């Protein structure tokens, strides 16, 4: 016979076990977490605004399983995206202003030189079970809008990023996908920092502002 005391002790254990079983049946979830260093570059003498839209700050990728042997995946990159881009842009420009409202919807800030709006257009991943190659990979494609403080377009361009990490003993798929995503974010930052002033429309604008002399910078 089971006593009331045994039942009280048993119930939380049973609930935990059921939750664990249910969690095992659901999609594999990765909330990307990492640390991102500031860039070692000479900041451009500009006051840049940045707008992280809801689609960007809450970016999440969902991939549904295609067969019984595969599991569905949810990869949440939004928080890590904001963390990386905030760190990067603070190092790239003399001053960075995080906007609280979408550009063009409120009173334009006269102190800003321009506003950058990043978007994640696409994210793909591959794990060894898909490719039979012993690396975990993440691809991302970004689209950037550079607009004036009152929302008029200056430039628009796309940029790819890629991160991979090798398989390792005692490492779960989730840990490896997280690391690959962190590498993809670092790659995005590196690509952006080294190519920003080479984007033709951005280069023209920087030259108009007198920030670039004539030839392209880094």
């Amino acid at each position, binding site marked *: 016979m089971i006593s009331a005391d045994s039942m009280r002790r048993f119930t939380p254990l049973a609930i935990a076990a059921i939750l664990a079983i249910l969690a095992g049946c659901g999609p594999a979830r990765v909330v990307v977490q990492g640390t991102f260093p500031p860039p*070692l570059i000479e900041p451009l003498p500009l006051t840049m605004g940045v707008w992280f839209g809801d689609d960007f700050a809450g970016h999440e990728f969902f991939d549904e399983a295609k067969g019984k042997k595969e599991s569905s995946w949810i990869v949440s990159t939004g928080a890590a995206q904001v963390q990386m881009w905030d760190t990067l842009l603070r190092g790239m420009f003399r001053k960075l202003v995080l906007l609280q409202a979408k550009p063009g919807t409120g009173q334009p800030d006269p102190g800003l030189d321009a506003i950058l709006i990043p978007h994640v257009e696409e994210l793909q991943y591959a794990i060894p079970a898909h490719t039979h190659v012993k690396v975990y990979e993440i691809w991302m494609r970004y689209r950037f809008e550079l607009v004036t403080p009152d929302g008029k377009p200056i430039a628009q361009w796309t940029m790819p990023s890629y991160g991979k990490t090798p398989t390792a003993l005692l490492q*779960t798929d989730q840990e490896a996908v997280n690391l690959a995503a962190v590498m993809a974010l*670092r790659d995005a930052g*590196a690509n952006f920092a080294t190519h920003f002033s080479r984007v033709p429309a951005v280069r023209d604008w920087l030259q108009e502002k007198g920030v670039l002399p004539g030839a392209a910078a880094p």
Partner: protein
Amino acid sequence: MRARSIRNLLLCVGTALLSACVTSTVDQMVFNEPTDGIGDSSVVILGRRHSSDYETEPDFVSCVGEHIAAADKSIRVISELEFLNALYPWFEPRTAPLHPADIERLLQQKPVAQKMAALKVEYMIWIDGSTESSGGSGSLACSLGGCFGFGTWTNDSNYEATIWDFTDQAEVGHVNTSASGSPTCLP
């Protein structure tokens, strides 16, 4: 004094690449006879990560650094992650210099030149290669809670280390090794 230091560095790299408890061979080891010492400068060891189908393991790069530091206490080794973070974004897979001549272009960036001077980097060792596992037997299952089971397999490793002299912006040494061994895992 310097010749001894550089030879020690190269031998340390060779030893580190070999000392993974496996059967291994040095396929090639060449180096320039140096003319000056390491002094209080430092060495950084970095993994090449350009290939699409493999990646030089960060753990292996770290292991080589530990072996070098242990084998010669006079050599100061900067960890890979510390260096990559300090020099971000200039040594990421997309932006890392591929040839010693690229160093000059890199040093045109004033903050990079200042950081390199502060770190006193004299030698840069690039490690390229990977370890492939094959012929596994046993059963080892891993999940979020850890791993369970017993497994044995064969590891085949192939690594190449290239040493750059940062001041002279030239390649001063090259080591090629291959190794094979059978680790066992019982978590």
